[in-house]
């Protein structure tokens, strides 16, 4: 690990930080609304139905919200997983750990972008 040589390091730290903010501010409420509000009887089932989500999907900034919500925490997790593996005593594989962790986040970004723009 030579941080001085790696010019991309500040970018990944920045993405980690941005992802941390999104994970802190937006994930708890979204998780609760999506996963727990209906089973707990706090919200009508119709609020998460097919028709409801289709209606929400036609609003452009909802898609932007979803993009930010899903993509940035991936970079946050990639960064934390990378360092946790070092902390657990893992060494580099033949493929650099940076490439594996951040690469997964980049692939996730492309996939999420494709789904939001082209599929939905």
């Amino acid at each position, binding site marked *: 690990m030579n941080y001085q040589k790696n010019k991309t390091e500040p970018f990944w730290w920045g993405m980690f930080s941005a992802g*941390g*903010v999104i*994970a*802190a*501010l*937006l*994930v*708890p*409420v*979204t*998780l*609760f*609304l*999506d*996963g*727990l509000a*209906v*089973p707990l009887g706090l*919200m009508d089932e119709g*609020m*998460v*139905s*097919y*028709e409801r*989500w*289709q209606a929400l*999907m036609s609003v452009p900034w909802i898609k932007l919200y*979803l993009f930010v*919500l*899903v993509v940035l*925490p*991936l970079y*946050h*997790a990639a*960064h*934390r*997983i990378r*360092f*946790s593996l070092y*902390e*657990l*005593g893992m*060494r580099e594989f033949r493929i650099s750990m940076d490439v594996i962790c951040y690469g997964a986040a980049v692939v*996730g970004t492309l996939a*999420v972008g494709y*789904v939001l723009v082209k*599929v*939905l």
Partner: protein
Amino acid sequence: MSERREPRSFYPTISPTWWLKKRSYFMFMMRELSSVFVAAFVLLFMYELFLLSKGPETFNLFQESLRRPLFLLFYAIALIFAIYHTITWFGVLSRIQVVRIGSWTLPPIFVTLSAFGAWFAISAAVAWYFVK
């Protein structure tokens, strides 16, 4: 003239269970682990929304399966981890973002408190928009 030899890299040996030895180490690892639960949730959420493209039957069937106990357990655990992340993140924020007004420094606790205020406001706004 003796030939200079490359020094061998030094790797400290770390036991893979060092983080179980002390409560603070454990909480540190749990904070790191929170990111995995958060990522798992956002990917599951994205997959759920992706199924909109497969028509109402598939989507509603998956919605129903998300209400099975195993998924509810996942949501509950992920929510606890997500909130733990929020708490630790705002705690660190007050150390990174020092607010100075002239020569006076705002006590760090107020930075954390205002972050919590923003969190409640944003959460309430999102929830209100979603259920209205």
